[in-house]
């Protein structure tokens, strides 16, 4: 098992190199550097522009900038924001819990609904239920996130007034940030009703962000389940006189989960991508909104550091998924 972990972890190094390289050069392909963007149309003297560039080290050749950036990263220094002058890592850690909270709720929503829906669709193949699940999930998958979010806001927030339009908590409440997770912090505080308000704020963004993973998980579970249900060992299970529930819920699901877990892991990447849109729409103060703003301001250190940290997160989650996969699938664990 230890060897398995080490071999998986070793694969991470080239991925990191690639991400560092891409995040550094891609943002520099965008026209306008941080100073030009800040100045806007006010105009600036060429001397002052040159001086400011020199201060930020932007006058150096690209490869020198890259080398010093990689050197900083290796010594654990993610730099400071050009706009706020705060350390990037600090800003990230402050905003990160909001994104995690939203993503976890979204993926929970997707798994809790998607798994049973897929299993039911597969075990009643060709039924009305099967067609409904497949049709709805295809719709969910094809739906542009921003449009879907606006539709839900119009219905539930504007027309019905059930949920708030944006933010994490009603302005009526002030909650001391302890963990950064609003659901936990509101429970820790003695503000009555704050937890309810946090939940209310979380519902719509979670549903919006969880829709695509939900569709993917439901469809994947269904197809994986259909394949497994046709296997010889399912016939064996039936020949043992096991109940249908035990056959589907234990013998088939355990095997069908193997590809589904991989897909759930891959969805984490999609989720963080989706979080950027979702957070922008719902004014959710998380990593996604932070990154979008850093692009608009050409805040190079924030963008580079942020992308690298998000990538690290995705890699770690995928590593965990790989390990989980080993636990689910004995053939991997014992490796050949």
């Amino acid at each position: 098992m230890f060897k398995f972990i080490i071999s998986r972890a070793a694969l991470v190094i080239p991925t990191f190199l690639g991400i560092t390289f891409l995040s550094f050069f891609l943002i520099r392909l965008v026209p306008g550097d941080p100073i030009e963007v800040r100045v806007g149309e006010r105009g600036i003297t060429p001397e002052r522009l040159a001086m400011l560039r020199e201060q930020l080290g932007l006058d150096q050749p690209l490869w020198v900038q890259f080398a010093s950036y990689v050197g900083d990263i290796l010594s654990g220094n993610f730099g400071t924001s050009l706009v706020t002058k705060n350390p990037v890592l600090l800003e990230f850690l402050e905003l990160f819990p909001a994104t995690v909270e939203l993503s976890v709720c979204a993926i929970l929503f997707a798994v809790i609904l998607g798994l049973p829906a897929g299993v039911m669709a597969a075990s009643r193949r060709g039924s009305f239920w099967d067609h409904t699940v497949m049709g709805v999930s295809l719709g969910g998958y094809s739906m542009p996130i921003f449009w879907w979010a606006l539709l839900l806001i119009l219905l539930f927030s504007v027309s019905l007034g059930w949920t708030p339009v944006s933010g994490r908590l009603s302005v009526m409440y002030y909650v001391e940030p302890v963990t950064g997770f609003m659901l936990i912090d509101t429970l820790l505080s003695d503000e009555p009703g704050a937890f309810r308000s946090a939940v209310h704020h979380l519902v719509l963004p979670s549903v919006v962000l969880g829709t695509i993973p939900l569709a993917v998980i439901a469809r994947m579970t269904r197809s994986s389940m259909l394949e497994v249900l046709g296997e010889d060992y399912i016939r064996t299970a039936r020949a043992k006189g096991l109940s249908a529930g035990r056959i589907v819920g234990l013998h088939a699901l355990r095997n069908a989960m193997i590809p589904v877990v991989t897909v759930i892991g891959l969805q984490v990447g999609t989720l963080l991508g989706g979080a950027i849109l979702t957070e922008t729409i719902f004014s959710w103060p998380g990593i996604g909104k932070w990154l979008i703003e850093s692009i608009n301001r050409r805040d190079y250190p924030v963008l580079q550091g942020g992308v690298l940290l998000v990538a690290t997160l995705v890699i770690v989650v995928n590593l965990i998924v790989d390990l989980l996969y080993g636990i689910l699938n004995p053939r991997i664990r014992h490796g050949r």
Partner: protein
Amino acid sequence: MPLLDIRNLSVEFATRSGTFRAVDGVDLHVEEGEVLGIVGESGSGKSVTSLAVMGLIGHNGRIVADRMEFAGTDLRSLSPRQRRRLTGKDVAMVFQEPMSSLNPCFTVGFQIMETLKVHEGLDRAQRRRRAIELLDQVGIPDPESRLSAFPHQLSGGMSQRVMIAMAIACSPRLLIADEPTTALDVTIQKQILDLLVSLQRDRGMALVLITHDMGVVAETAHRVAVMYAGQVVETRPARALFEAPRHPYTGALLDALPERALGRRRLPTIPGVVPGIADRPPGCVFNPRCPKAQADCRMGPIPMFPDETGAARCLHPLRQVGGQAA
């Protein structure tokens, strides 16, 4: 009263090109403690017949029978729950592909003990003890440590032994073995066959051995039913069948045995293939491939004609060994 009594069993599947009758009016009976061999080519309906007995035909299959009784219980009228109480306990089955018939996600021990848990309700320690005993009985060395092995760590022969251990876990009165040796190496085939026969003898259970290998039948079966295109075409005690087959199909199968073709330069074969879904001939289902076929073989359904030792579904049966017609 026979242990298993089947009259006029038909199994039909709905396919895109119409209904396909995989089993067509089969009569079978198995006595307590008897070894019945069911022989036939691929597509002759042997497996479907046994799956119908086990209640393992999927939703797309339709089972019709005049009688289908196991130990006096009418299998046709059982509720799914009653059916499950029988399947895996009193009637058990071993399949053709041992490697894919065990669930790759669970240990051997779990899979054996699961059967015991569902049917016998033993406690954990008892189940474990029984599982070790069973693995020992099917000739698996070091049974205690094998309990925690996963199927992918076992060879084909070992997997089949585990499948057999699982099948006999609740001391079934009838064990159906569907081509239990086909997927195995020749050397292992013999071991598995010997194991099945010795278990059958020791426990006095009835064994239905489904195979396409006449040699296997000759070594093990008390009585033989030969199936062709969904029908039983001949049935009689093994010795009588091997000495004097009456149906030309049985004769041709026996002629194709290498040990019977000594002195010939080429092994005799049966030309053509088993008729499929669209080309079932009228009259005798074997008539297009039969060297003895005459005009009357191509008309109307042919009944079973009983004789001194059994019965054959043929208008112009063979009289002597080796396919010589009278």
